[in-house]
């Protein structure tokens, strides 16, 4: 009699046929035994067989009954044994993991980090880059911008004139719809307590071009461009829910916008907030998200301040549409011959517009995350190898007791699964928290991030990828170890010599790989950080520790203005600003208060052609000089902390009845009048043959950064708002410098504005520091993420190195004992161990540095004034790695030096 061994995992299930056969065999045995018994009693064989079968009873019934019952038993037993096996395996794996606490904690943390980083980037990339834009046939939507190759305005996407909409509608067949739009702020509600909203003025075909359908009501159309039917508004889903409680009755109601009645005709679909500031060129200063849309009649004249969006007809490619669009250049040139060469256009697919600038950064970070994951896996392999070394005896014993390779592999897999599960829980929590952090931190500069929520699929994908990678990383060493006979381990007492056995050499190769990868990540983070610090230290032209900026928007009903008119034509607006400045300057603590349009790093900049006095006429009108054009009050430079290099600021003597004056920036002065004083020189706005009044240069100011910290300075002229000959007054930016902290000042400043007109809200309140921070937000984001990766990589590499060295020291206790016995000082032993660690680190640093140059070239679009082979960064990285290596080696080195000489005598 033998007992049935309980087999785990590989329990074969009996087939129905097998069950039947087994039962027949059982019955046959019974009958044979009965017959044998009867024969023994002297009954004849044939008679005995007859008696035996007579005793059977209803065998067919029994066969059916037993067949059914055995099948059920088989299933139940199989299921229970499998479950038992898994539970038993998991329990024993958990017990082993608990015994190797250091290994378990390190492995779980390493993998959590890998999963979290991987899932987070995957989440962001899939949300921002991969998810389709929420518009119908979004691939057919494209932005149309102006393009003047002869003039560098510092940005490539230039605004267009209103007449382009009509020209394109009438002449370019490639588009089924085209619309122009621009930002406009609205004060919603009654005079007493208005709320400022960011709105968009758009021509009739806007929603048709975008390809969205109304949540409620309808959108406006081209018919709404005509006066009389243009006081209609489409509101965003967010505004509808927040302000109007999601009431469908809102359609048809009238609301007050800028003190004028508008009829709500529709609600945009949820999530529609086009255009969002982060998705559009920075110089357009579109709001972070748009809350309402009103119809715009394509302005026949006026400044070029429109963005155009078009829907390309189905079947027409972007290139074909681009070619078709070029036809308007000829039309424009026939219309305005002197502008020849300045009517270029460009067509940019909406997706490219929205994420194009972010794509390289996100892909770089994704690549970095892949490196980090690789590093995490190498670390797991490393840890597993160490575990394997430590467990050689245990494995050998289990193997000797009859555990198959499959059984041992199952044990490994179970351990890794347990570790991965724990890491998955921690990692997913980290991702969830990370996404919230990213959304708080990154939405204003990363496009589409508002729509990107925590995505369980990304987390799951990252989890699976990491689990698979970890499994491979964990099984590889097991597979390597399989080749070295485990019985050796029994004989040799489980001693592997560093530099000798296969696993030891594999461990050294792995640690060098880890160090190399971490050098790449640390160097990449270093490059981005250096680039960021260059940006932050670059001369912005302003500095105001207690500077505050804010905006006010004047409703045109009460502050009427006409384009192309002088100051005299909008006295109400000028009176408002003059009175507001007076009150602001009277607030205690205020050192200087001014208006500027725009303030640096805070808004769309006008540019204008101009003519300097005495210059020869340009060869073609397109070669007429261009400069940035800023409107300001007195004290703007003082409030911003900008140096006046020569001359004076505007003052009360500069008004509509005195000589027109202008302040130029340093770049403009150097460009126009190199080696001379600019003071007293004269320029006028417009082409050579035009005849507006001459403006006399009264001052030269330091260059101001206008759009980004990385731009190079461009010529700029600043004119006093009291003599302002050109743009609109409707939205103006204030800057206030004070001796007291700005937060305390804000109520008083609001009070000052309300004192002039209580119906005008103060909005977009930002400190001067905020302006710089917002402008460098993308660089900060990339640097922060990459630094996190770099630090993680460094920690992982240190853990790995520590593991290798500590293990080596443990294995060579006897050797150290002999050295001590032979008179080596503890310090010598410490040095010896540290040098061994440093030798591994050195190989990693050299290999990593070479790879870092490659990584730097990948990152170069994100680098400002830093080269890919930046010696400071690479040198610094090497130093950091060396230091990290020393720190990682120190503890084991000390342990080695403390080995007692008597250990030399111990039995190995």
């Amino acid at each position, binding site marked *: *009699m*033998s*007992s*049935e061994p309980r087999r785990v995992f590989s329990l074969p299930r009996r087939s129905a046929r097998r069950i039947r056969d*087994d*039962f027949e*065999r*059982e*019955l046959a*045995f*019974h*009958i*044979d*035994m*009965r017959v044998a018994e009867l024969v023994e009693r002297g009954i004849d064989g044939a008679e005995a067989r007859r008696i035996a079968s007579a*005793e*059977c*009873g*209803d*065998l067919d*019934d*029994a066969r059916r*009954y*037993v067949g059914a*019952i*055995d099948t*059920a*038993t088989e299933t*139940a037993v199989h299921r229970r044994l499998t479950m038992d096996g898994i539970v038993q395996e998991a329990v024993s794996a958990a017990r082993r993991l608990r015994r190797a606490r250091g290994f378990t904690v390190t492995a779980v943390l390493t993998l959590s980090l890998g999963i979290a980083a991987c899932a987070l980037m995957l989440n962001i990339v899939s949300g921002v880059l991969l998810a389709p834009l929420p518009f119908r046939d979004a691939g057919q939507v494209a932005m149309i911008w102006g393009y003047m190759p002869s003039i560098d305005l510092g940005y490539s996407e230039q605004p267009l004139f209103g007449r382009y909409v009509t020209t394109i509608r009438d002449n370019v067949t490639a588009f089924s719809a085209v619309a122009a739009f621009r930002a406009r702020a609205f004060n919603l509600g009654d005079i007493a307590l208005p709320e400022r909203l960011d709105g968009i003025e758009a021509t009739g075909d806007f929603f048709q071009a975008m390809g969205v359908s109304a949540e409620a009501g309808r959108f406006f159309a081209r018919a709404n461009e005509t006066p009389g039917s243009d006081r209609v508004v489409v509101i965003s889903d967010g505004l509808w829910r927040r302000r109007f409680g999601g009431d469908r009755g809102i359609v048809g109601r009238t609301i007050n916008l800028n003190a004028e009645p508008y009829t709500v005709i529709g609600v945009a679909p949820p999530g529609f907030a086009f255009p969002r500031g982060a998705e559009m060129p920075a110089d357009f200063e579109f709001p972070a998200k748009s809350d309402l849309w009103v119809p715009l009649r394509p302005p026949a004249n006026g400044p070029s301040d429109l963005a155009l969006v078009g829907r390309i007809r189905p079947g027409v490619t972007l290139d074909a549409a681009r070619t078709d669009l070029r036809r308007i250049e000829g039309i424009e040139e026939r219309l305005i011959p002197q502008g020849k060469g300045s009517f270029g256009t460009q067509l940019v697919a909406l997706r490219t517009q929205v994420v194009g600038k972010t794509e390289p950064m996100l892909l770089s970070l994704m690549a970095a995350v892949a490196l980090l994951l690789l590093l995490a896996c190498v670390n797991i392999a490393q840890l597993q190898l160490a575990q394997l070394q430590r467990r050689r005896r245990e494995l050998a014993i289990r193997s000797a007791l009859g555990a198959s390779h499959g059984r041992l592999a199952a044990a490994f897999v179970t351990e890794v699964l347990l570790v991965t599960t724990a890491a998955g829980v921690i990692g997913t929590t980290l991702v969830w928290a990370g996404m919230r952090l990213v959304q708080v931190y990154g939405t204003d500069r990363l496009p589409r991030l508002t729509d990107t929520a925590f995505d369980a699929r990304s987390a799951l994908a990252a989890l699976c990828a990491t689990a698979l990678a970890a499994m491979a990383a964990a099984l590889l060493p097991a597979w390597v170890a399989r080749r070295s006979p485990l019985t050796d381990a029994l004989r040799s007492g489980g001693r592997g010599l560093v530099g000798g056995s296969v696993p030891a050499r594999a461990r050294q190769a792995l640690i060098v790989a880890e160090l190399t990868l971490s050098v790449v990540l640390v160097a990449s983070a270093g490059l981005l950080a250096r680039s960021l610090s260059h940006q932050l230290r670059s001369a912005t032209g302003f500095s105001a520790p207690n500077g505050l900026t804010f905006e006010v928007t004047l409703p045109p009903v009460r502050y009427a203005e006409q384009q192309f008119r002088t100051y005299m034509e909008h006295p109400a607006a000028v009176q408002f600003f003059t009175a507001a400045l007076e009150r602001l300057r009277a607030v205690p603590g205020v050192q200087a208060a001014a208006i500027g349009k725009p303030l640096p790093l805070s808004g769309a900049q006008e540019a204008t052609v101009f003519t300097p006095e005495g210059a020869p006429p340009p060869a073609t009108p397109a070669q007429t000089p261009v400069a940035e054009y800023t409107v300001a009050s007195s004290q703007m430079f003082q409030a911003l902390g900008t140096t006046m290099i020569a001359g004076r600021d505007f003052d009360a003597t500069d008004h509509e009845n005195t000589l027109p004056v202008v302040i130029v920036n340093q770049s403009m002065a150097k460009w126009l009048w190199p080696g001379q004083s600019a003071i007293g020189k004269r320029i006028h706005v417009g082409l050579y043959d035009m005849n507006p009044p001459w403006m006399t240069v009264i001052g030269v100011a330091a260059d101001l950064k206008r759009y980004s910290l990385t731009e190079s300075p461009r010529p700029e002229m600043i004119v006093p708002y009291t003599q302002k000959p050109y743009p609109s007054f409707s939205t103006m930016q204030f800057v206030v410098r004070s001796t007291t902290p700005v937060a305390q000042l804000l109520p008083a400043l609001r009070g000052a504005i309300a004192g002039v007109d209580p119906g005008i809200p103060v909005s977009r309140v930002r400190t001067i520091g905020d302006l710089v921070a917002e402008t460098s937000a993308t660089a900060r984001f990339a640097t922060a993420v990459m630094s996190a990766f770099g630090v993680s990589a460094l920690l992982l590499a240190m853990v790995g190195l520590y593991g290798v060295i500590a293990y080596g020291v443990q294995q060579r206790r006897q050797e150290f004992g002999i050295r001590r016995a032979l008179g080596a000082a503890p310090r010598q032993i410490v040095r010896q161990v540290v040098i061994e660690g440093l030798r591994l680190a050195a190989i990693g640093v050299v290999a990593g540095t070479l790879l870092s140059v490659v990584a730097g070239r990948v990152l170069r679009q994100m680098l400002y004034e830093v080269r890919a082979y930046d010696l400071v960064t690479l040198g610094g990285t090497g130093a950091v790695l060396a230091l990290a290596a020393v720190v990682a080696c120190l503890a084991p080195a000390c342990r080695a030096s403390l080995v007692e000489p008597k250990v030399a005598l111990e039995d190995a």
Partner: protein
Amino acid sequence: MDPANLLQGTLDVLVLRALVWGPMHGYAVSRWIGERTDGLLAVDYAPLYKALHRLERAECVSAYWGVSDNGRRARYYKLTAAGRQRLRQEESAWRRYAAAISRVLEPA
């Protein structure tokens, strides 16, 4: 007693009782029942094996293939802990039942 009228539960008790002596194959169980009752109860194979497999399904016995005394492969049945408990319950129920019946039949 006619074997055909043997109650199903009674047969189960007998089988369990037989297995108290240790693991047995089906033939040994039938021999044991025959011997214990001096041949009074001769159980047909069909109901016997139905009972054995039923008890296996109920986890009162576990079965495995072993080698019999004469060197042939035979299916052995072994009482499980659940089987022991079931036997105890059935035994006391049976004793109470038998006592009740004999009290009825005894001359007053």
